[in-house]
């Protein structure tokens, strides 16, 4: 049943747009009902929309997802953006949507996509996911150092700035998690910050993280810069008081070591 209201007679392209707008508002079932009621002429865009909508329409079952995979596999045989996005979504099905994930298969899908379309946004987003799989979920390599090395090797292949930033964040966090030297952690986090583009909570968290980890390393000036930025940009945050204390402590160290006036 269509609760949100689907105008009775939309033109073919508008039906698809309406469906995507509903998907963008997490109303996949409404989108599916609309697509079924107003059958689009068969096109790659229409088939792709239906596949994505079905991924998210309740009830989600493995059998239903299998049908989605078949649909996406057909679409992935093309060479347009729909093909690239379809191939990426097949990786996502194995990584996150099937009730029993198959991380090795997801990794394989991402790797193949990146080889076929190295500059595609979807292929590069797949490489960020591949890094996550290599770092935390695949059985091999055994040591954290080897996992990190394999994930870092993906970095030059990711050229879309915001995806490169996210991969730096993944690498920084994983090195922290595996208790690797702080210099490497900070290098990745600062690289992510330089690319920029994070907003709201994530932006503040990165500033705090660099500030605090730098402080623990005795990198006073760097810590000061990031804590100061957090303080300047955040009027309302429960951590401000703590940041003020840290800035005062850092100022004392800077004074004592004669680093800055």
């Amino acid at each position: 049943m269509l609760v949100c209201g689907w105008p009775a007679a939309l033109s073919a392209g508008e039906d698809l747009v309406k469906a995507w707008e509903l998907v963008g508002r997490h109303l996949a079932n409404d989108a599916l009902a609309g697509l079924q009621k107003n059958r689009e002429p068969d096109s790659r865009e229409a088939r792709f929309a239906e596949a994505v909508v079905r991924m998210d329409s309740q009830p989600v079952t493995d059998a239903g997802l299998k049908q989605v995979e078949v649909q996406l596999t057909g679409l992935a045989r093309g060479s347009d953006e729909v093909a690239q996005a379809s191939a990426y979504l097949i990786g996502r099905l194995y990584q996150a949507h099937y009730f029993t994930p198959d991380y090795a298969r997801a990794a394989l899908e991402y790797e193949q996509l990146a080889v076929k379309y190295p500059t595609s946004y979807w292929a590069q987003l797949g490489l960020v996911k591949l890094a996550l799989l290599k770092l935390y979920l695949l059985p091999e390599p055994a040591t954290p150092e080897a996992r990190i090395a394999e994930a870092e090797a993906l970095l030059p292949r990711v050229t879309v700035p915001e995806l490169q930033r996210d991969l730096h964040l993944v690498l920084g966090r994983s090195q922290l998690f595996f208790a690797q030297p702080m210099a490497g952690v900070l290098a990745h986090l600062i690289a992510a910050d330089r690319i920029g583009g994070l907003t709201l909570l994530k932006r503040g968290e990165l500033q705090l993280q660099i500030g605090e980890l730098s402080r623990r390393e005795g990198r006073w000036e760097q810590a000061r810069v990031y804590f100061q930025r957090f303080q300047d940009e955040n009027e309302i945050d429960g951590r401000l008081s703590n940041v003020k204390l840290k800035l005062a402590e850092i100022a004392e160290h800077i004074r004592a070591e004669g680093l800055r006036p």
Partner: protein
Amino acid sequence: MKRPKFRLMMAVFGLGYLAALGWVFTRSTPLISGRPITIRFTHWQIEKGPPEGFDAVIKRYEELNPRVKVEQLTVPGPVYRQWVRTNLTGGTGSDLIEFAYWLQGMNDVPVRYFEPLTRYMEKPNPYDRGTPMEKVPWRLTFDDGLYTMLAQSPEIGQIYGATLTQGSMRLFCNVNLLAKITGRPAVAPTTFEDFRRLSTQVAEYSRRTGHVVHPLAGSFSNAQWLAEFVMVGTLTGMNLELDREGYLQRWPWQSQTDYLLGRWNYHRPEVKAALAMVREFTQQMRPGFSQLSRDDAIQEFVRGDALFIYSGTYDATSLKQLAPFPVEAMRLPQPTKADPVVGPYVLGPYQDGSLGTSFEVYVNKDSPHKAEALDFLYFLTSVEGGQLFMDHSGWLSSIRGVKVPKEMEVYRGTTEGLSAGSQYVGVGANSTMKFWQHLDLLVGAQGSVDKFVDALEPTMLKDITADLRVEIRTNLQVSRAADSEIMAMSALNRLRAPEAERTARQQAMASNQTLTEINEYESLWVLARHGYKQP
């Protein structure tokens, strides 16, 4: 003969029609927009205060807008969710509706039924003309810049509602009783040591007068609120010590994985000290309080059988109106570094009160009077509307520029004081339930910190493992849902002219999904290696 007569009649009719048209377009009031209409606003705040506050705002609004009549409908909390769902689905929802992101099973409601207000938020509120907020974007006229609403939005960057109030947990005092106990002038406690001394004086007063008074009105809920505040304050140092990621704050998945990694447990000395403090506080409530409800505690207080009640500022108006004595709100005294129980673990004053604004009001997307509903919401959240609401409800307004009486300033949260997240009254649904189930072993007459911890710890690994599984599942759901949204933004940019806003949302979604997955996968790593396994 007949033809000229017919022509004459047609001419007269035509002239009459033209005259009528001329009158309609030049002299009459607007055809549709001038008709009187009624808009309805539904909320669940049936305590004393808010309904009176709304009456005052509505009265003034109707003076300014005689064409619009506003009705408020109050629906009790226990049936509110069903009311909202049924009426919105049936197309009978009121024009303005109170809603909150934490209402269970209602995640789809904002996007499905409420009008996004983001595009209005960047322009000034028209009712703020002539006030200091005249040129300030609507969003920034709220004390928290609607930060909480943005953080909880079902769509990144989208604002669906506006808030009316802000509040915190506070200690409410029976001022007359305090004067009787301490002598005049009445001396309110400002340090925890003062509170300890006062508790002794209360016991002496009870012995001397035969009127049994307890320092704190007691109920399970009031004890829970106290425990949460005492625990989070005392354990700030432990939180910061465990803060490997450097966020200066802890999220549940971090406390859960850290427990599994053996980085903390209830035997840690600072946790035991915090629990001892909870015991000390709750010993000031009447025996058997854990079997009593919040209403019992309010009655105990208004009867004059308790000197203080620790409760939310949302109860302030009720307390002040029900009590036959003056009631004053104050902050709960905090222990210092010199405290013999928790002193070694206290880093300094800790944050006391919420910084976010609340009481969210939404415009029904299907309202036949959407423009009028939005207009009333503008007025309700203007400096004048906020002032009227606060003055008549006794609830602290969320609006900047509203003049707050001195006695209400204490309701406000503050950025002063340390804060780092987890309270450790459990770190997820399973462990939290276990914590409260065993509370009697901590606060009962025969209880002790050791008895409580000894009862809690043996199953904690199992409980927190279950909590972590829930956390991972929740993250997975969030991450799955993001896939279709990311695809939708990309497809819309492909099928229509690309929009920068859509691109930014796609990028933010993709980034947030990846960051969520880091947390999820680190949790999975720890769970696989350190989680509870059935023997």
